[in-house]
């Protein structure tokens, strides 16, 4: 049962080779094995969205995947978006519109929006709300998150 599996995959354009137990969740792998703690764990059953990352470019719940399933794939976490000195337009928009308070839900929301705005660069507010229906926020009441998303769409078009 403690059989280890070899993995090789890229996270944020860096390649990693690791050996893991099959039951290790991808969210835990990213946080504990790779030290990428930007991906947060909220519910571990797929409803809160805090653990959302990009898997081959598509947003997925990392708490509902096993690390072994990432073998051979390309992952992106919130750490790929920008740096404190050079924020991604999405992050700038969240800063400007106060789209976060405690920040716990934010990484999942940013990754969801990154993929959404790529697919729908000129969304309506209703479309943004539907796109974010899989991400829960306890602090903000969502209005500033939606405003930030709309602002980010503008910034990304420019």
């Amino acid at each position, binding site marked *: 049962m403690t059989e280890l599996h070899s993995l090789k995959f890229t996270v944020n354009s860096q390649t990693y080779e690791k050996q893991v137990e099959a*039951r290790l969740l991808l969210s835990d792998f990213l946080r504990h094995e790779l030290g990428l703690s930007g991906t947060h764990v909220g519910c571990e059953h797929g409803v809160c969205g805090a653990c959302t990352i990009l898997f081959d470019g598509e947003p997925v719940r990392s708490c509902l*995947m096993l690390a*072994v*399933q990432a073998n051979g794939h390309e992952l992106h976490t919130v750490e790929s978006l920008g740096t404190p000195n050079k924020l991604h337009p999405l992050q700038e928009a969240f800063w400007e519109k106060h789209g976060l308070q405690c920040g716990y839900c934010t990484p999942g929301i940013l990754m*969801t929006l990154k993929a959404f705005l790529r697919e729908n660069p000129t969304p309506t507010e209703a479309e943004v709300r*539907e796109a974010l229906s899989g991400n829960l926020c306890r602090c903000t009441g969502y209005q500033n998150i939606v405003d930030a998303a709309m602002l980010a769409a503008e910034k990304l078009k420019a």
Partner: protein
Amino acid sequence: MKPSPFTYHAPETLKAALALKAEYGDEAKFLAGGQSLIPAMNFRATQPERLIDVNGLRELDFVKTEGAELRLGALTRVRRLERERLIKQWSPLLAETVPHIAHPQIRNRGTVGGSLAHADPAAELPVILLALNGRVRAQSTSGSRWLNADEFFITLFTTTLQADEMLVEVALPQLPARTGTAFLEVARRHGDYAMMGVAAVVTLNESGVCTSARLVYLNAGDKPMYAAQASAALNGHALTEASIAEAASLASSQEIEPMGNLHASPAFQRHLAAVLTKRALRLAAERAVA
């Protein structure tokens, strides 16, 4: 909230996957999208000894037509159904339903075969399969067989799939001319488990008389619930406010057995069923002649 230990297999061919399932039977569970299985394992509500990860079986990921049927491979991601133009053309009912299935992140991993084999009575795809009178193909090391929707779902999370079988393909029939469809559900948050949902399929003849109707309900019992009597009652009649109301009343009071949950009492679920039936039938009737 971490899974208990298990042995993990990642077969590279369907043949290898089926051989593993034949060897280990109920000791092993297939891992496809994992959007229902892994939460259950995280809760330790299920503790399979072995997982057979079938995500490598790309040959099971397809959307195509074959004669008068739409054929979907079991490993087709639900998200693909949202994007594929063929789905919109061939099955407006399926196209209308898919955006209601959970959230985009779930739809990116969840599979058509997984949802049907898992047979959650609150899931949308089993309801659609039953409403369209579709069928699924089960394969094992001893062969392959087709199972009709009306014989596939037994009860909660239970289908007629045998311990050595894997659901590999889904077939949905093309609907006849002058057939309208509608899918409606009510959930507290878009994408959450619906408190009630209904799929309606009606065919009208040239005089506007219904020649065929199917009403199937979600989260209304221990499996997708087909309201046979209400559906039959519409046959031979025009879809008027009166005949629609009668069908809604019959279906919601006699033909569903909602169990209630945190968000809705059984009585409220029945009320929703009646309201949604009327709306769905009106919509389907409009679309049949459009």
